[in-house]
């Protein structure tokens, strides 16, 4: 039995090395390529990175800001992760997140007579519910109508953006203001910050741990994983494919909506369509960087949150445009997916030649 435990440990270690190597290399490679670009422009990459990371992680305020930025990223990363575990590529995190952000903003300014704790819970619940609703539409279409979730979630993104734009510029618009935005949420519904720790970040950490536990230790998680890995064997084992797909999309959308809600309640304090734009798509990068593991995404989210938090100061100190962070993100995504893509092509070329030969 003790030999057995050694085996388990060895297996786990093997897995961990493999799983951390690619993300780490991807981030370093992206930073390296970016520094060549900075160098070519006559800028000092070392100074830029130093400024970026000192701002992000060098002080209590900096860390608070980093963690604040990281909060919605953790949640959108979790949303993508949950989908991928069930074999679904939820590209609609952006739309679900916007829906959640608007819904919680409305709950934050239109409801005024609740005790703070309950009010915050209600506002977060609004985010989860409406984000989940958008996810559930794609889930329903996939499970019961066979429409591919990539198509529906991309289309739902456009639809949702149109709807939230309309709502924020007409019925929910802040009166007597030229800007398209909702009124500010009331003071007491704002998510409190404890020292360097924004409470929204604590919520997102709690959810990450929850998801890790559910996926690893419950029958529900086993259902999700099984459908994602082999839906035929899952069906054979008595797991309902349709049900699992539907709920995976619903919860994925809900978590994304919650990401929008913590952004509204913790950072922007209102809904403004021009904000939050990339958060949902960053979730894809973070999920892949975290190897589709609920805990694994946390470092990635903090790193990217830190880059976002430090970008403005980097421009000030080193003259590097804050768009560098977008470039870094894009390159990280490229490097992190490159091994996946090359594996895919390797398999598919094999498939083309050997497909249908049995075995």
């Amino acid at each position, binding site marked *: 039995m003790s030999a057995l435990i050694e085996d388990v440990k060895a297996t786990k270690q093997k897995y961990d090395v493999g799983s951390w190597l690619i993300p780490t290399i991807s981030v370093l490679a992206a930073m390296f390529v970016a520094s060549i670009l900075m160098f070519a422009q006559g800028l000092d990459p070392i100074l830029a990175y130093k400024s970026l990371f000192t701002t992000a992680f060098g002080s209590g305020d900096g860390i608070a800001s980093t963690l604040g930025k990281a909060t919605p990223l953790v949640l959108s990363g979790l949303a993508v992760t949950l989908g991928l575990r069930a074999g679904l590529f939820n590209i609609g995190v952006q739309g679900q997140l916007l829906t959640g952000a608007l819904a919680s903003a409305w709950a934050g300014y239109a409801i005024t007579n609740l005790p703070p704790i309950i009010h915050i819970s209600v506002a977060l619940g609004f985010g989860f519910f409406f984000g989940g609703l958008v996810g559930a539409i794609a889930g329903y279409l996939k499970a019961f109508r066979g429409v591919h979730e990539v198509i529906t979630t991309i289309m739902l993104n456009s639809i949702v953006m149109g709807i939230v734009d309309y709502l924020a510029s007409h019925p929910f618009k802040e009166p007597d203001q030229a800007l398209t935005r909702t009124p500010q949420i009331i003071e007491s519904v704002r998510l409190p910050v404890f020292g360097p720790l924004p409470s929204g970040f604590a919520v997102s950490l709690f959810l990450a741990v929850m998801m890790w536990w559910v996926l690893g230790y419950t029958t529900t998680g086993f259902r999700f994983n099984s459908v994602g890995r082999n839906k035929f064997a899952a069906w054979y084992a008595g797991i309902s494919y349709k049900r699992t797909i539907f709920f995976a999309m619903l919860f994925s959308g809900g978590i994304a909506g919650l990401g929008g809600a913590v952004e509204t309640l913790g950072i922007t304090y209102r809904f403004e369509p021009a904000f939050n734009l990339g958060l949902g798509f960053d979730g894809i990068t973070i999920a892949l960087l975290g190897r589709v593991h609920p805990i694994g995404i946390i470092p990635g989210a903090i790193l990217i949150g830190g880059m976002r938090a430090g970008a403005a100061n980097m421009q000030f100190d080193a003259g590097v445009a804050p768009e560098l962070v977008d470039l870094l993100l894009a390159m990280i995504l490229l490097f992190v997916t490159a091994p996946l893509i090359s594996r895919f092509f390797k398999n598919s070329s094999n498939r083309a030649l050997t497909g249908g*030969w049995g075995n």
Partner: protein
Amino acid sequence: MSALLEVTGVTKRYPGVVANDNISLTVNAGEVVALLGENGAGKSTLLKAVFGLVKPDSGEIKIGGTPIVFGDTAGVIARGVGMVHQHFQLVPVMTVTENIILGDEPKRGLFINKKAAHDEILALSKRYGLEVDPDAVIEDLPVGMQQRVEILKALRKDVKLLILDEPTAVLTPQEIDELLEVIRNLAKSGVGVVLITHKLHEVMAVADRVVVLRGGKLVGTTSPKESDEAGLAQMMVGRSVVLQVNRTEAKRGGVVLEVKGLQVLDDRKLLMVKGVDLSLYSGEILGVAGVEGNGQRELVEAICGMRNREAGEVLLKGEPTKNLNPHAVHEAGISHVPEDREKHGLISSYSIADNLILNQFDQSPFSKGWIRDLSAIATNAVDTVAKFDIRTPSAFNTASSLSGGNKQKVVVARELSEELPVLIAAQPTRGVDVGSIEFIHNQLIAARDKGAAVMLVSAELDEILSLSDRIAVMSGGKIVAVLDSKDADRNYIGRLMAGLKE
């Protein structure tokens, strides 16, 4: 003139299995060679070797007199070897012409010369007598027509050797007749054709020579003139490996499972099981023998809730079971070793431990309510790995790390663990090494001796003969005979399997 294809003494070993054992064969221009063998007989490995995808451990493969280089698939194709896959490689939304010229388009400047392409396809189809409408869109065409497009695609590249991989598996009987005609015409025009199949009458109808593979070995070369379907069936199921199983007399109990007038459609929506009646008694093994593709798969799937029943019923202990899903059938008391273990039997990226409880994951003791009991799962895994001799460094390695035989042991172990009244084992030893075969056989007999009603469906006649107490022979979607295994005679069963009445 040298032969189109010359395979000399090719051997390929995989861990635990010899996929190709010293195989030699030649294909000449203008001849149709049928490569006959059950799944797992080594056909795929041989073909992969011909295309340079698999490196043989020894032996040589020559095309047109020159040896091939491992890894040089493009070179093999350039030398005029074409293949039509069982699963078509066509773009459904493009036209016939577009599909055929894809990758090598006649051009006029920067643009595709559509007129020239159109005319070329017409000429090509006329030359080989393969009638197609060059402007039809692929997805609108029936399957037989799509296959014709695949063949034309291969022929356009000046193919000297055409390999057809189970070309009739997806066709209706009329389409099959047309295809056989096409194959004959191709041979007449000088193309060498390799036809991979396990359907005997097609072989009889079209082949000049028949090469029979079994268990990785070339068991014989014959021709339709020298042999008949019964002879081919016997060669296919062979007698090279004598499997000795110690088993005592069955202590047969009452009827547990009854199949009455069962009719089932196959994937093409054709009636494949044409009214089957069977009774399965506790404490016995009923072997279902037959050449593959005679409805055995559909019969098993219909009993096990994986395929809808058109007519008839299945009674378990006198209670009718409905068109259920596989899990509900399992709950009702039928365990099932599925034919396709990679697709249905296992989640290969899961650990062996999780695969061992795959259909009991939400039941006690493996879960307490919502929460999975990982220590119960681990204990079960360690016990089962020891008891079933599953060869792995750890019960927590992924199932994909196992060899075929050990994968199958995982599935068998799981299905036997609950000791349900009925066990249906479909091709339980396919692609499994000899040691694991013996182990699995003994487990089936042990289950029988504990009182289970066991139905064994196998394409291996030896397996059926050595394990079964009664033998049902299936041919053309019907049970043509049920024999006591004491009265079973290999030749007689071979004739029954080939669909011959005495």
